[in-house]
């Protein structure tokens, strides 16, 4: 059974936490999602295994990239109905500040959605939303239902 189809069948198509729970890598990162109305915020609670620089310490650039990518995908799946998980075509990440060893939050917006491809921008922050630690824009291939 395809995971997105299964969630739809259970009437939980917009339950992004259930979706994350079904993705082993999202569980490994410890990622969560919080929904307020039609706004989705992703959360990456800090844990030691996310560290990339032990001297600072700072969160690994790869973990930041993964969090941005998953934040984009979650927003995309929240906005649209897909047969399968979107495939990342490309993603471009700007690292703006080093990630402190605290929880990180993410938001994404789908800037353009075509039939087959979507453009998504994502931003993640820690203490202050106006001081993002990283931003990304990416293209994702869709499989409409």
């Amino acid at each position, binding site marked *: 059974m395809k*995971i997105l189809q299964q969630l739809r069948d259970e009437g939980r198509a917009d339950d992004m936490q259930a979706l994350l729970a079904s993705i*082993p*890598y999202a569980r490994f990162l410890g990622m969560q999602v919080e929904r307020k109305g039609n706004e989705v915020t992703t959360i990456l609670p800090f844990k030691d*295994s996310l560290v*990339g620089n032990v001297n600072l310490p700072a969160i690994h*650039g*790869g973990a930041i990239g993964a969090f941005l*990518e998953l934040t984009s995908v979650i927003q995309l799946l929240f906005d649209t109905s897909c047969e399968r*998980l979107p495939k990342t075509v490309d993603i471009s990440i700007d690292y703006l500040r*080093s990630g402190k060893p605290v929880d990180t939050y993410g938001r994404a917006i789908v800037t353009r959605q075509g039939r087959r491809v979507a453009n998504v921008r994502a931003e993640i922050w820690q203490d202050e939303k106006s001081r993002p630690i990283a931003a990304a824009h990416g293209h994702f291939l869709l499989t409409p239902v």
Partner: protein
Amino acid sequence: MLKKVLEQLPPHGLAIGMALVDVTGRVCTVRVPYAEHLVGDPDTGTIHGGVITATLDNASGWAVRCHQEWCDEMSMATLDLRIDYMRPAEPHKDLMVQAECYKLSKNIAFVRAVAYQDDVNDQVATSVATFMLGTPNAPRTDVS
């Protein structure tokens, strides 16, 4: 050389399971064995793009440290990383990454990298990254 770089494997690299397997000239080769916790699509068992992102980022950083003009007193921070995903990684196969620092200027390091599985010419993803070089990082004081 290999050992010195390997000692810098960060916790997140350990958690993913990445290992530096070779350094030849300016090219670093890194392996990530397939593991269940890295799966990004439970329908297909393919590993998540984030794993590839993390490995490309880490391998690119190692490539900068392997450049002959690098000195250990320097620090670096990723400025940007752009990744193109060409095809999904096949399940149950190791992911390999080769990264090359093709230019190390006074302030910036430029790195390209490829991710593949069996054949370096049949790529899963490619990336280009730039790193800001600087003076050593002092431990942060803004978090207790």
